[in-house]
């Protein structure tokens, strides 16, 4: 008490809240597919587009996407960026490539890690396939997809994916 202290200028108020998150019906189907090492999409009954992952509705038509569509393991890089910055939660050595991957048969691309190719050789149109984690590591999460790697096929034509960048 005796010594003069600096006035209080900050207040620490830690906040911790616990939740039980529920994935819902449609997303659970997709996640269970990932746990089995395969991609499961869903088709909109109105526009026939195939969503992967689907949250259960077609974002354009606002109707349930009930029809399940089994998708293959290959796709096309529609666009990408090179990550050079370390940030919290990151577990991959920089630089590395994060790409939008359009699976064959799907109508929407999602974000994926590209490996097994030098970063400066990744390009739009690159054909890639999913590499899954070991079977005992598979779980209901995109973490089941270790990364994507080139298939060695010729690049896709720009026109075939330009609407999906």
């Amino acid at each position, binding site marked *: 008490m005796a010594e003069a202290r600096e006035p209080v200028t900050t207040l620490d108020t830690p906040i911790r809240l616990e939740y039980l998150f529920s994935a819902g019906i449609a997303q659970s189907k997709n996640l269970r597919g990932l746990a089995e090492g395969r991609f499961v999409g869903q088709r909109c009954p109105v526009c026939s587009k195939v969503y992967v992952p689907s949250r259960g509705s077609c974002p354009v038509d606002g109707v349930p996407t009930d029809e399940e569509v089994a998708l293959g393991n290959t796709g096309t890089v529609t666009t990408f960026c*090179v990550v*050079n*910055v370390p940030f919290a939660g990151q*577990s991959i050595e920089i630089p590395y490539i*994060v790409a939008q991957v359009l699976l064959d048969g799907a109508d929407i691309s999602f974000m*994926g890690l590209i490996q097994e190719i030098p970063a400066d050789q990744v390009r739009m149109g690159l054909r890639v396939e999913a590499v899954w984690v070991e079977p005992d590591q598979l779980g209901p999460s*995109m973490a089941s997809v270790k990364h994507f790697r080139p298939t060695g096929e010729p690049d896709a034509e720009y026109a075939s994916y330009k609407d999906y960048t």
Partner: protein
Amino acid sequence: MSERVAVIGTGQTKHAAKRDDVSIAGLVREAALRALEDAGLGWADIDAVVIGKAPDMFEGVMMPELYLAPALGAVGKPIMRVHTAGSVGGSTALVAAHLVTSGIHDRVLTVAFEKQSDSDAMWALSVPQPFSAPLLAGAGGYFAPHIRAYMRRSGAPGHIGMQVAVKDRLQALKNPYAHLHLPDISIEMVEQSVMLWDPLHYLEACPSSDGAAAMVLGSEQAAAAAQVDTGRRPAWVHGMAMRSEPTMFAGRDQINPRAGRECAADVYRQAGVTDPRRDFDCAEVYVPFSWYEPMWLENLGFCDEGDGWKLTDAGSTSMDGGDIPWNCSGGVLSSNPIGASGMLRFLEAAMQVRGEAGEHQVDGTRRALAQAYGGGSQFFAMWVVGTDKP
């Protein structure tokens, strides 16, 4: 049939990485008191308050309008809290404006803020959710691929983004409220900054700021009274519009989103704008990453699709000799209190029209455009303000 509405007072904080001298209430009051003073009004003169900000997790206060109501003089009045992602500062101003154009209120205080240094913006924007993809790329990693796609589509050369980064930072030197003041900024400096998310350099991205913005919006009668009291002219709202589209769907154009084009068409129709490059004297547009300037030049119809980068390249968007200066305040690239960033665009456009922008004033501005966007380039809010009573 709608009533006229005008901006009769503006106020903003000094924006900084960490405003560690104020509480949340202190931050919003700093902007609100400046807006009231500018309008020549006191708290008791205000009929209603509309407040906006991005996710509550930035400050860890749920629905903070409840705690802030007495700080903003809202006791005994209506107060509303808007949240439309990054566009929120703009849409908050529009909700406030509708309270006047609908004839319900005469003087509405609207405030937007973010005190993101209470936590961490990168964390709050991407709180990891169960079952979602592991965090691969960070915030810019979402936008960088779209920028690459724009470059491919338009054939823009790589230096365009750096040019925007330099131009907006030079303009920020004329704005005392701007967070970043980088007097030595140059293309070389941008080029030598870390390549965060190729093709984006560190200095091509916005900072993370604490800050607030406030405006007093008034009816025709309130505007006339304020002009008599303060000697400052109002900025009349000539048009306002909002549009939303889904985050993602098959075939969605994220580079030139239809919601943005249609929002612009709507606001231009209301304001009688047919050729934005000619009809506007300046514009304040939400450009958080440098390349969004050429992309939005196209989306907002300042040029044909694919030509946005040519305007940037020719210096047309610079205060220094350009015919259509963009972001004379320094823009989001120089100050980014996320919830307030959109309102700062709306407010800066009004300041230009009122001739109150100080060193970054574009002389003779008669009409200006403000745009804010958010989410995955899916939420848009815009207004056109002008010196003439519509």
